[in-house]
């Protein structure tokens, strides 16, 4: 059990560092890093606080706490994947730069038409 918790803690820390480095290099936008950081911090807390993990296991009615950790880990990442699916779907429609360019070009075309009339 201790080894599983240690691995989870190490992976969580690695994930936090990876995400922060990615934010720093602007490979991940800040708003898209929040889910990863929240998930990693939650797993880190569960793996480093046995009482918290036992409480989570009791709440889930699971007698073996490491199983609860596996379940929570799976749920956290499923939620993250779900959230990103929503974001990507929205991003497809909401291409900010393109929308701004379109609006500006339309504005300038209309202004030119008004002047030429």
């Amino acid at each position: 059990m201790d080894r599983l918790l240690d691995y989870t803690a190490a992976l969580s820390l690695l994930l936090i560092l990876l995400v922060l480095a990615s934010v720093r290099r602007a490979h991940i936008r800040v708003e898209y890093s929040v889910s990863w950081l929240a998930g990693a911090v939650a797993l880190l807390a569960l793996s480093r606080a046995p009482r918290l993990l036992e409480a989570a296991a009791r709440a889930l009615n699971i007698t073996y706490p490491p199983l609860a950790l596996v379940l929570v880990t799976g749920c956290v990442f499923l939620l993250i994947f779900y959230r990103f699916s929503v974001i990507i779907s929205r991003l497809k429609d909401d291409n900010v730069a393109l929308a701004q360019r379109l609006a500006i070009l339309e504005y300038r075309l209309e202004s030119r038409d008004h002047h030429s009339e």
Partner: protein
Amino acid sequence: MKELLIIVPAFNEEGAVGGVVRGIHEAMPGTPVLVIDDCSLDGTIPVARDAGARVLPLPHHLGLGGCVQAGYKLAFELGYQYVIRVDGDGQHDPRDIPRIFEALRASGCQMVIGSRFYDGDANHTSLMRSLGIRFFRLVLRPILGRDVRDPTSGFVGVNRAALEVFSRSFPLEYPEIEALVVLQRKAFRFAEVPCRMRARTTGRSSITPLKSIYYIVHVLLGVFANILRLRPRR
């Protein structure tokens, strides 16, 4: 070169935007006013046009930062020297615009902020917002190397140098605080002038406790990202 453009980001502000535009025309006669409509579902566009504003309609909802940046981009392309942003909900008093404009021209600063706290505590500011402002003042002081009284104020004027920077890079969500850090990274300067904030006359604030927490986390991460960006200071 054209001198000053007033931009008014607006989203579903048909109840307030007409008064805002008329107030700007009274305070700054002859100055063009551009309402950037963030794909409102109500009559914001006709109301703004009837009040005498030009309108830049966005094809879909971009959020405040994207909306403001669209105005900055257009102003930069059209060759304006200064841009002052006035929110479309009527909380900014257009009578303060001349003070911001004068400070922009006289100080040589790249940005001038209309501050509700310049002369002490502001009216019409909720306890939650006041606490948030105090928190971010503490966070920003060591980063900016000086105090900023009202870092969340959207009542701001920028000159052409800042306009160029913001045209290229501007926070898309909750832009005010991050924009200060963006300017600091360019070694730009800002000044604050006292301004009145009025109570919202129509609609209601979308701020909830959960959104406040998200706001704080988002802005802190945005500040962190801007500080650690690899691009050197200029």
